[in-house]
């Protein structure tokens, strides 16, 4: 009988351990959309598709929580996420690796963003419009990208974290027929993560 008394706290503890367990919380994306996570166990699959719904693994249907509760419990780990990757676009003058005046004005802000970014990794991708032959455009797009890379290096971004790509007239922002000048396609995209 004394044995049984001993057992009760242990039993309670092990039950607690079994229930306390794994929780999965689905959150809304930054833009307000809600994704989906399928929680798959031996017992079956629970689908999470509502913002702030919580699946307790092995614990039946998901429970609906709310932003306040999730924020108070998980605020620290959410605030600790790395900064979101960024995509910046700069435009160029016709047939040249000179930035347009509008894009030139954006450069100081871009450099500040990169300098403040923790351990930045950068891909600089150059593009052209469809004027000129493709070999010329491949070269021009690479020159545009290199021009931006040099700017980033002179601002103190380490050379070895910058990757440069020239895509010529491929993947136009605005599709055109060959030979059509299109300012929006004369660009460099900076991907920062």
């Amino acid at each position, binding site marked *: 009988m004394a044995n049984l008394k001993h057992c009760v706290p242990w039993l309670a503890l092990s039950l607690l351990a079994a229930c*306390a*367990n*794994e*929780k*999965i*919380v*689905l*959150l*809304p*994306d*930054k833009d307000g*959309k809600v*994704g*989906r*996570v*399928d*929680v*798959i*166990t*031996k017992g079956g699959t629970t689908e*999470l598709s509502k913002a702030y719904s919580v699946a307790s*693994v*092995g614990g039946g249907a998901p429970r609906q929580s709310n932003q306040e509760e*999730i924020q108070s419990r*998980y605020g*620290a*780990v*959410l605030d*600790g*996420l*790395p*900064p*979101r*990757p960024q995509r910046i676009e700069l435009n160029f003058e016709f047939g040249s690796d000179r930035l347009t005046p509008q894009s030139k004005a954006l450069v100081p802000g871009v450099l500040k963003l990169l300098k403040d970014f*923790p*351990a930045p*990794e950068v*891909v600089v991708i150059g593009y052209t419009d469809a004027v000129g032959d493709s070999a010329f455009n491949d070269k021009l797009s690479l020159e545009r990208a290199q021009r931006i890379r040099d700017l980033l290096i002179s601002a103190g971004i380490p050379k070895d974290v910058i990757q440069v790509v020239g895509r010529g007239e491929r993947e136009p922002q605005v599709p055109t027929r060959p030979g059509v000048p299109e300012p929006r396609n004369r660009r460099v995209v900076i991907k920062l*993560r």
Partner: protein
Amino acid sequence: MIRFLQSCALLLSITLLSASALAAEWAGTVKAMNGTVQVERNGQQSPLSVGDKLYPLDKVITARDSHVAITLRDDTLISGSANTQLVINEFAFNPSTQNGGVVISVVKGIAAFVSGLVAKSSPTAMRVTTPTATLGIRGTEFIVDLGN
């Protein structure tokens, strides 16, 4: 003899090629941390700092009052709370096609995720595993809390 030299050169270039391919195949980078954060690689533990690269099969371990923020090459974001252990089980990503495969295990603790380009490319391409469940990630933001 020339044959032999040729095949040696070929072998050497293949070895060099695969070595450089391997060097490029990092999975992610430490973007922020505080406290004590270790990586276990090939059975050895060493401290991590901001800017360090992480590779497939690395286990990241945060101590008490510690935290780590990791960005994978496909833009997946991970935040590891205190007393947390994560393993990058698989990571493959082709930046041109944006296809690949990502498997992360949460072994202990609490982690928040924002899935990236791999999960976007295919609903079966990213998985997160826990001691008792497998999560199929259709997107995008979620928390895994192991309650320990």
